[in-house]
């Protein structure tokens, strides 16, 4: 999707290892979000950022941390991966709070924890 890139696209990791997912945008949007997508649950917000070094928790933040040292990058870290964190992770960006013009989503990272 134009303007937003997630890396890696796929990852398999072992239980107990730390994992970092990266979201990179070229739109200079202030707001960035990390969601996870699981069957039957839709998308659930993990963490979000409303500016450089400004972040807050979403509804499923336990076991995750984030950092935003530059406008364009928003990192999601699984401190010690568990099988319950096997999921598809999506990053989204927005130029305004509340997604007035809708969010732009990345193509996702499929993470498998074995």
């Amino acid at each position, binding site marked *: 999707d134009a303007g937003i890139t997630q890396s890696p696209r796929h990852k398999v990791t072992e239980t107990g290892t730390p994992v970092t997912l990266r979201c990179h945008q070229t739109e200079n949007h202030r*707001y960035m979000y990390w969601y996870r997508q699981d069957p039957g649950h839709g998308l659930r*917000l993990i963490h*979000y950022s409303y500016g450089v070094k400004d972040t807050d928790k979403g509804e499923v933040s336990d076991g995750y941390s984030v950092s935003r040292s530059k406008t364009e990058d928003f990192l999601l870290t699984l401190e010690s991966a568990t099988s319950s964190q096997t999921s598809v992770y999506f990053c*989204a960006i927005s130029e305004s709070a*509340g997604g007035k013009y*809708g969010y*732009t989503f990345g*193509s996702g990272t499929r993470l498998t924890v074995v």
Partner: protein
Amino acid sequence: AQSVAQPEDQVNVAEGNPLTVKCTYSVSGNPYLFWYVQYPNRGLQFLLKYITGDNLVKGSYGFEAEFNKSQTSFHLKKPSALVSDSALYFCAVRDHYNFNKFYFGSGTKLNVKP
């Protein structure tokens, strides 16, 4: 608490027929509602939103949605379905108190058969 429900996991429709994908919501205050579409191995794409005003909202790709306050519904519609409309559709509602938090439904898979 804010939430949305999509009562149908799957909707099947023949090409050329009208389609409806259902969504009901529960919010504190006035609702701020969205529809997104997800094609395989892609992120979500914004279709349309309702903030206030006309109950019939027009969006991308010929889709529209009807807001019904008395029934707390926000159903997605299209007069004539295309095979290319086959995808996963998500309804979402914005949190009344924190504009950065959205709550997504579990998704409805739309199958349009030739």
